[in-house]
């Protein structure tokens, strides 16, 4: 899974869920949109400052601020009827990534690693990345909470792109590889002698293997981070924003068997980038510009390498933004209805599921809660959200708690 996380709440009606009715009733506040948002705004409908065009065989309408992604719509499955519990960032972000409003539960990626095990023991199973600022709530978004520590994610900052950042102590400050090999061999020899004396101990055996694995990790991780051998065409496909670097690295990691990459958008060190929509929704253009080409590059690159079938890409924020205005040019949080899209990994391409009302505030047809999205993601990864449980504190926990419905309608 590659999650393209858009913290702060991107507006649905300015990106992938256009509503011409807003312009028709600009400034009015019809009953349908008179619902409380976070700041209990009372202003009327605010038309989108962006124009929309149709793309692809499916004829999907997409905002001018996502021109590259727009060309991939035939591979994308849009869910327009998302909704979540509360209109506050931290809680809703936790809900989106942990299925719970507080940081006390394991993250989606941690559950995936727990459920699927590892495919490449030389790399961690869950890697989180962002340019500069970590999303609000930080490590909870890729944390393991009460799951065993082996299922915890690691974090890489895309500004510095250091392999050491995802694994501490990855490099010996002085020794050469051959000298480290001698040390590793001596340790293995002494540990084997100890194992013979103790006769039987599974932990001793696995620790000898883990030490050898660590030796190899020292070289496997920098290799995954080394994008210099990518072709010029590939590098150009992604573009050169920090987010785009993350997209390329995400492909390199899933290619090597990393189970989940969580790539969060951020700009100007802001931990909830899309939140600038409060003051001026037109700022969405800058945010989109920093991620659009990288996203499209990732989808195309995965497709041409034949990886898109087995890689699920999920785009979206913790909630959306209201079609009504806040102040003169901004929009308030909207947890009643918003858009998330998925691509690859067995979902239908060029497909849209669910709708919001005619103005785009509330999920109307086929509402999808975040728990349903989680259930569906786990299902696509071959896991049953009701059976993927962990016994802790006297009961069985799961990502979706007692909720969640698999959206069979979106599966190809």
């Amino acid at each position, binding site marked *: 899974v590659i999650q393209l996380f858009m913290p702060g709440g991107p507006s649905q009606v300015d990106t992938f869920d256009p509503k011409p009715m807003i312009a028709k009733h600009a400034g009015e506040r019809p009953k349908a949109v008179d619902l409380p948002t*976070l700041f209990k705004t009372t202003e009327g409908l605010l038309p989108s400052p962006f124009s929309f065009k149709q793309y692809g065989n499916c004829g999907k309408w997409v905002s001018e601020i996502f021109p590259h992604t727009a060309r991939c719509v035939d591979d994308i499955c849009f869910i327009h009827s998302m909704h979540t*519990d*509360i*209109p*506050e*960032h*931290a*809680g809703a972000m*936790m809900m989106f990534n942990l299925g719970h*409003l*507080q*940081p*006390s539960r394991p993250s989606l990626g941690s559950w995936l690693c727990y459920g699927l095990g590892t495919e490449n*023991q*030389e790399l961690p199973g869950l890697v989180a990345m962002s340019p500069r600022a970590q999303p*609000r*709530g930080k*490590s*909870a978004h890729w944390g393991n*909470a*009460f799951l*065993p*520590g082996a299922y915890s994610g690691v974090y890489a900052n895309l500004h510095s792109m250091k392999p050491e950042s995802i*694994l*501490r*102590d990855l490099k*010996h*400050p*002085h*020794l050469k590889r051959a*000298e480290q090999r*001698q*040390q*590793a061999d*001596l*340790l293995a*020899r*002494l*540990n084997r*002698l*100890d*194992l013979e004396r*103790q006769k*039987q*101990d599974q*932990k*001793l055996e*696995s*620790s000898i293997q*883990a*030490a050898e*694995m*660590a*030796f190899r*990790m*020292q070289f496997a991780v920098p290799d995954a981070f080394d994008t210099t051998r990518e072709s010029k065409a590939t590098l150009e496909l992604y573009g050169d924003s920090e987010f785009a670097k993350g997209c390329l690295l995400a492909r390199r990691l899933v290619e090597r068997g990393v189970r989940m990459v969580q790539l969060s958008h951020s700009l100007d060190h802001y931990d909830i980038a899309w939140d600038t929509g409060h003051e001026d929704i037109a700022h969405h253009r800058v945010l989109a510009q920093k991620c659009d080409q990288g996203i499209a590059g990732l989808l195309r690159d995965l497709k041409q390498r034949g990886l898109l079938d087995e890689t699920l890409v999920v785009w979206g924020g913790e909630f959306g933004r209201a079609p009504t205005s806040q102040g003169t040019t901004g929009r308030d*949080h909207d947890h009643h209805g918003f858009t998330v899209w998925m691509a690859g990994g067995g979902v239908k391409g060029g497909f849209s599921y669910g709708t919001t009302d005619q103005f785009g505030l509330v999920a109307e047809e086929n509402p999808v809660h975040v728990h349903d999205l989680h259930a569906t993601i786990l299902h696509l990864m071959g896991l049953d959200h009701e059976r993927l449980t962990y016994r802790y*504190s*006297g*009961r069985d926990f799961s990502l979706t708690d007692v909720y969640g419905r698999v959206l069979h309608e979106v599966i190809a």
Partner: protein
Amino acid sequence: MPGCAVKFACLFVVFFAVPARADEPVADTSPGGELDPTEGHWAWQPLCRVPPPKAENGARIHNPIDQFVVAALEAQGRMQPRPATAPVFVRRVFLDLIGLPPTLDELRQWVGRLDGGEGAGGGELKGDAVAELIDTLLNRPQYGERWGRHWLDVARYSDTGGWTHDDRPLPNAWRYRDWVVHSFNTDLPYDEFVRSQIAGDKIDREASIGTGFFALGPTYASDGGNAASIAQVVGETLDDRVDTFSRAFLGLTVSCARCHDHKFDPIPTLDYYSIAGVFNNTGEGETPLVDDNTVQVFHEHQKPINELLEKIRKSRETATKAKRELTEDEKKQIAAWQKEADDLKAKAPPKYDFAHTLHDRSSVDMAVALRGNLMEHGPAAPRRFLKVVAGDDRELFTKGSGREQLATAVVDPSNPLTVRVIVNRVWLHHFGKALVRTPSNFGMLGERPTHPGLLDWLASALIESGWSIKSLHRTIMTSATYQSTSAFDETAFASDGDNRSIWRMNPRRMDAETWRDSLLAVTGELDLTVGGPAVADIVGSNRRTLYAKVSRNNPLASDKFLRLFDFPIPRATNAKRTANVIPQQFLFMMNSQFMLNRAQALADRLQTESGPIAARIEPAYALLYGRRPSEEELRAATDFLASGDSAVDRWQRYFQVLLSSNEFMYIR
């Protein structure tokens, strides 16, 4: 686990047989006695003092513990294990009681006194010397540091708050940590220890520090003031208190009854809110640890400063409200006030010492929150103790928040849970595996005790000793059972791989603290200063690992090291450490500056004038592993050292391997 499935099936029948409206929590509806399969559950039966069974002739019986254990082994046709050798036993006792290995001198001294004369053959250890060794270590301040840490896991102790931003500072959290260490060192009776943590503010200032158990808990906050999320965070914070309270002291998962009656234990939702109500009336604050005069002087100095800051705030607010910039005059005035305030601040005395503590703020009952949602009120939940322990005819908690009465109910000797739970926790840390393998869940889904009679015998003995934990250590550690060898036995392993019958001592991997402290101890670098504020980056310090500053959310420098070696994230009470083996641990051993420094320190310490290689290796083996190197090990060393020096001295590289070995990390 077919037996388990059957049990579940009948529970389902019973619970679904109860007529209940799905949209309403069912209060106090556990079925009548004739139907309730939970009624006979062992954990809520009174302590049962069965006489210790008679053991066969020739068994080594030091006290009734051995009678229970040997009888159980005999019943399964197993032999009592041989005693450990003296060097192994001395290292075990040191690491177990104080979390540090013996020095070379201590090892020699105690091995000499313990050895019953049969040498390494595993003969009986001398009983009076064993008792003396235990007493010696119990009297060291390092004992409280080690055993206090076990309790801090249970208390989900952290030096910072708990919400998403993790920014609620708990600058004096360490005073609770030191209070716990001190309580163990002075052998504060366990019932007093518990009472202080629930309601110490009702006892005295010293005891009030104990309420840090709750006052330092994670407190959740809303990110925007939305009513639904405020209700949610209040509910979540109360849930931490109920969950930690019930699992830590009682081994009950009351938190499962937050939204609906407990699915498996007789804990109705009403009981959850009876306990939550006590904490809902409780506030968290500061208790000064200095005399009243100092506090008064501090506040007298703060008063004019606060007045000036308030004037500045008001002035700015007036301008903002009128939607205008500050005038030049106003700016000047503000600057003058600010300067005056700064001058006063510079002269004011620093903040006095204080502890994070609890206090009562009201005395009202809560309503049941329907489906856990505090915005939807159900029936009132009178504050009182749990039905499963105290029965139907319970005292109502009406004094203040009700914490004092709650504390009394918890440590009432007629409550069998509190005493069984602590005895089991102590056993766990001595043996690595508990008598009840689910130490914080004694309910229907928890495990049954491996030795029920022994558990209750120990529980009764603890109460009779005046709840003395040190006396419990002595009883357990002087038993032949504790002195058993950890040697592997193929036949026993085949039929009881989980060692439920205690056919040997469990070999244990050190936890993060013991391992790091031991590394610093053998290199002679460990700083044994006791207590004080937390150390931000423990890896760069020589203090004991206990003093690392830990957080609940975003790992601080210390957390990153600790979590690598399975230190539990202190967001919820933790009964038992896991011991995961992961490659990242070996990256730390191979490449970290910490390990390179230890290797160098060890090389410096064992520096001898040139001589045979063995002359330098033998002291290293004695110091690290408490034994002599084998021929094969000497050969391995010779081979390695022959490779010569590189960027790092060969001896240093060699010692780094010895420090990274499994043998060093294991307690056997």
